[in-house]
């Protein structure tokens, strides 16, 4: 009888439901056969058509066609619609494959049950066991649907765009979009007009991320250490006051800063001119000063976060470490360098790395404060302070360079993903997470 499960499995691979019939489960077999017929029909009609659309992205362009003696505007294929239909078709196909695998597994396990002489699992009992065991799937249904349609599908769609020529002159419905392979990627690196902008913006993005992370982190640490000194009173009050920049919504504080640093009428320049008799600085209009300003403003916003975080860790460092150091005659600088710094760094390293990754994507500070300006005439659609993300945004919204913006999105993903994966490897908290339970 060892053969039962094998034969059932092969039969159901050949045609859904045959294996179940072989296992003498008539109702189930017939049900699966009916599903099989439905799947074949849908695959042959809907799915194959939509997949074909995904491959060709449309064949007949919109244009004037001579009908009788008159020219008429005939609507052709819409490449973007075809692409979306194709993606949905692909999802449906994956679902079908899932059902198919389920069917094969069912035939195999029930075949084994027959071999062991245990009664097979019928439709009703099967549904009951689903009710018992699949509560998590039931709970996850809604989130899964929303994530697949609002996050996964759009991301896949955007990734696909990177391999097309969907950009300003080629816009559906007037034109058909075509697949171009890796041409956009190579254009970005080799075409001098694009590569100059790309490497320039990438370089500034990296410099910005490093400076922004280091200044806020060590600034926050210094402030935290200063407040936690034994001699300082009203610790709570200082923390309360210094947290204010963090509590004000970014959007508001950045727009306020934009006015505060205004070249002509901003209070900072007025102060420099009237009180100190200086010229006033081109805070947001000079390329170098604009970069300095965004770093300074980012410190104002970011230091409070690091401060609270590090204050929390400072209180967990055992007192006796410092007492022992004092007995040995250590100065306060030595205590900081050899006790505080390593302890804090050790427990915040993963956060530090993720802050670095976050700063690469720090859209708000740049876009709301400088809008990427001052404009760099040598760049394509980018300014001196533009990061990759703000450039991507401008390319999409203002210049309709959808394919290049998708390429940049993929590049940002690769950068962030490598940093994060490195981080997981280091902290290993992902692997150990089951130990908590």
């Amino acid at each position: 009888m060892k053969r039962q499960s094998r034969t059932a499995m092969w039969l159901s691979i050949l045609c859904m439901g045959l294996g179940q019939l072989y296992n003498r489960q008539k109702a189930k077999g017939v049900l699966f056969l009916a599903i099989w017929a439905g799947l074949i029909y849908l695959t042959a009609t809907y799915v194959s058509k939509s997949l074909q659309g995904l491959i060709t992205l449309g064949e007949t362009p919109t244009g004037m066609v001579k009908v009788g003696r008159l020219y008429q505007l005939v609507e052709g294929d819409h490449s973007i619609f075809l692409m979306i239909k194709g993606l949905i078709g692909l999802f449906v196909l994956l679902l079908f494959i899932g059902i198919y695998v389920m069917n094969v597994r069912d035939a195999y396990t029930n075949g084994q049950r027959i071999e062991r002489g245990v009664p097979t699992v019928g439709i009703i009992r099967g549904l009951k066991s689903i009710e018992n065991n699949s509560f998590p799937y039931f709970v996850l249904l809604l989130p899964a649907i929303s994530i697949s349609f609002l996050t996964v599908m759009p991301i896949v769609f955007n990734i696909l765009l990177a391999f097309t020529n969907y950009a300003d002159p080629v816009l559906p419905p007037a034109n058909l979009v075509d697949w171009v392979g890796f041409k956009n990627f190579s254009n970005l690196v080799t075409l001098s007009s694009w590569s100059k902008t790309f490497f320039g913006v990438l370089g500034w993005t990296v410099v910005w991320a490093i400076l922004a992370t280091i200044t806020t982190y060590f600034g926050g640490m210094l402030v935290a250490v200063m407040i936690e000194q034994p001699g300082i009173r009203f610790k709570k009050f200082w923390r309360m006051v210094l947290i204010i920049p963090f509590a004000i919504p970014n959007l508001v504080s950045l727009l306020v800063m934009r006015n505060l640093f205004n070249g002509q009428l901003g209070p900072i320049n007025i102060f420099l001119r009237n009180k100190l008799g200086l010229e006033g600085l081109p805070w947001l209009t000079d390329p170098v000063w604009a970069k300095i300003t965004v770093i300074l403003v980012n410190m104002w916003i970011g230091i409070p976060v690091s401060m609270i975080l590090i204050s929390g860790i400072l209180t967990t460092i055992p007192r006796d470490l410092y007492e022992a150091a004092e007995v040995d005659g250590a100065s306060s600088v030595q205590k900081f360098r050899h006790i505080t710094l390593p302890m804090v760094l050790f427990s915040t390293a993963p956060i530090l790395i993720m802050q670095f990754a976050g700063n690469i994507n720090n859209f708000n500070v740049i876009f709301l404060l400088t809008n990427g300006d001052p404009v760099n005439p040598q760049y394509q659609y980018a300014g001196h302070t533009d990061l990759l993300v703000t450039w991507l945004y401008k390319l999409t919204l203002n210049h309709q360079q959808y394919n290049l913006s998708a390429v940049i999105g993929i590049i940002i993903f690769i950068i962030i993903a490598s940093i994060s994966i490195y981080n997981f490897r280091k902290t290993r908290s992902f692997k150990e997470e089951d130990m908590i339970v």
Partner: protein
Amino acid sequence: MKPKIIVSYLILIVLAAISIYPALWIVMSSFKVGNSLYMESLIPKQVTLEHYRDLFTKTDYPLWFMNTLKIAIMSSLIGTLLVLLTSYAISRFRFTGRKVALSTLLVLQMFPGFMAMIAIYILLLQFNLLNNHWALILVYSSGSILGNVFIAKGYFDTIPRSLDEAARIDGASHWMVFTRIMVPLARPMLTYVSLMIFTGAFVDFIFAELILRTEEQRTLAVGLWRMVSQRQSTEFTLFAAGAVLIAVPITILFMFLQRYLVQGLTAGASKG
């Protein structure tokens, strides 16, 4: 007092002044007579509420406010439900595909947040569905799963499993354990998550700017940004009044949420 302490106090006072100054400046500007950016002294000589009145009578500010409130409340409700369901399932159950689900969430987090937003923008543009509040609500609530699920999961991980096991032995169904035991216990976490989603949606600029096209559909964030970027020098005080009205409730909310902040940050770190 040691000189070191005195220097520390001086530095702290300077830092405190820098921290408060922009807020103070914008509040004072909003009460100032006239509409220009220029200010002779920090405290205005004449105080007026005119700009606040203008905000409600001469601009669409009340409309923007209602739009924003509607979007933020709906996103917060739907988003919290989604976060609750996701985090509960992946914290409490060891089901087939759990590891896949966890890694998917982690990988999705690494994509630039608005790559999906931009794709949705292109899709809505092609389908002529731009300028719709529901697009914002759905995207904010779905996006909130990625941002908050690991904090929420961490919270569920700390609730002892013996609680639900005992209830199961007493004959409670999964659904009853979830609604009668887990949800009430998770209330502090749910409050935190819903407020985070609320404030996020309330001040979001990126996606709202992409989607919303007409004056009547605008949110506060977009409206405020337009005020500064287009009419900078002429109506600065109006902007100041608008900014103060947005900032005050959110700032108070954040001060209140402060104690959760460190937890949130460290929970964020363990998942990466």
